[in-house]
């Protein structure tokens, strides 16, 4: 169970972490500046297990992985959006930041609401009204990476060619 930070549409990587804070690869230091300018209350109030909910095209803009790393290190359990920008989507899967695609949640949720999420089953429960939503399923190929906890972990134990097996 966690609290929802609701953002808008087209949230870009400069909002998530401005370029001038990309001077480190330390996740904690990046988390300290996550949404630093557009929503300073985020890095102050976010707790481990909270959620980000957003509209279309979350994470658009730069390829900087500092953005999903900052979000992951700030303790966010999952980002749930209507859609994700392509590079950001890949980056999240690669580094093991859980993301979910839900057409409905954004329209029915308010900032500060509490939700419960089952990542494996793709279930989202809104606590204030007990409503349950389902997120879209990932392709097999991508599930293998997610199950390993990211592509780096996958490669520790597998050959990259194994991603293709079974598809």
């Amino acid at each position: 169970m966690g609290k929802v930070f609701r953002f808008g549409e087209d949230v870009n990587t400069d909002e998530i972490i401005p370029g001038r804070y990309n001077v480190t690869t330390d996740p904690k230091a990046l988390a300290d500046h996550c949404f630093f300018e557009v929503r300073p209350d985020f890095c102050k109030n976010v707790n481990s297990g909270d959620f980000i909910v957003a509209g279309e095209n979350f994470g658009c803009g730069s390829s900087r992985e500092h953005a999903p790393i900052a979000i992951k290190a700030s303790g966010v359990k999952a980002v749930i959006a209507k859609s994700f920008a392509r590079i950001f989507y890949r980056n999240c899967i690669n580094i093991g930041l859980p993301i979910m695609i839900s057409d409905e949640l954004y329209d029915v949720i308010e900032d500060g609401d509490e939700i419960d999420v089952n990542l494996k089953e793709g279930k989202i429960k809104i606590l204030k009204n007990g409503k349950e939503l389902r997120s879209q399923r990932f392709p097999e190929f991508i599930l293998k990476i997610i199950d390993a906890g990211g592509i780096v972990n996958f490669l520790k134990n597998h050959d990259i060619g194994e991603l293709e097996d079974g598809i």
Partner: protein
Amino acid sequence: MGTIAEEIFSKKLSRDVSAGEIVLVDIDVTMSHDNTTPLAIKALRNTGKPLFDKNRVVVIFDHVQPPASVESATLQKEVLQFIKKEGIKNFFREGICHQVLVEKGFVLPGRVIIGGDSHTCTYGALGAFGTGVGSTDIGVSYATGKNWFRVPETFYFDVNGSFNKGVYPKDLILKIIGKVGARGATYKACEFGGETIENMALGDRLTLTNMAIEMGGKTGLIKTDKITENFLKSRGYPYQEIVPKDPNYEKVFEFNVDDLTPQLAVSPKVDNVYPVEKYEGTEVDEVFIGTCTNGRIEDLEIAARMFKGKKLSPLLKTIIVPASNEVYFEAMNRGYIKIFMDAGAMVCNPGCGPCIGRHQGVIAPGDRALTTMNRNFVGRMGSDKGEIIIASPATAAATALNGKITDPREVI
């Protein structure tokens, strides 16, 4: 058989591949820069695997070059150690990654290239499949020489007509993005064709494909032709034809540039696109001409023609950053650098310049910058209380001359 994207992946895998398939392919070139290489090295090390093939790796220092803070100097030092240790030969600090890769012959038709930079989509102007990825994906290619892709569906932009005086390919791509929207082409390959594109110089084609990402595109693509062939052959690089064959496009957009006028994308979204007239007379504090979108010789030529013999107000920050050393040399030989400096513009060393807001022209709260960049997100050039307006080099130069937004057709 298929779109340019399908053709490239089919050639690469020696079988027919179509949109929607997930494929694992050899990566011809893996590129990253000072900002994205440190995390890529971390990812490689964490896989526990050695570097797969150092000859297919290119590292460019361009984002903050030379380093402007102790932190960036320290990170760059780490990357240099990696380069020395691994014996990576393809390391450059002579301009913006996307420009340098094209000039040095890393971008060739049919190649699959990933870059730790979102504007890697630029390379499709030469019939290569280039796409931006994060640092971990760079690390994956370092470790394996391969990566996975979902072969994208294609949006086709059919562009016809000829540009009026004072109107440029940058105005066209802004117009297109304004129509399609910042997420209108998410995950799609954006193929540009039609008579306008067929007549367009290679440098201008790069301006179009560069901005495919600004509508969410996975890559921008243009079929190869005589112009591509001449460019490559004049530099001694190999050419092969990459053209669509009976393509099936998900959507076709038609544009005619006969009536196109100069355009602006105003803060804070790239798809806030309006004709320059709407904002004429608005005062600006900074004009920046450069970047991987518009820092090439064709762009500097436009500005030099307009600045010749003129004086710019020193109250305005006018910054010019050639995209590469090659562009800089050419601009010097043609006398442009002297024209710029005589006029009172500041000419900085080749690289990204103030495009990511870390040096060479950071904006203050309340500043309004008019630039030839590709992105106007809040905070990108410095203060989040500043404003970034995107335009063509001609509109930027005209604006620098007057200190306020000016339609270039009045000055040319």
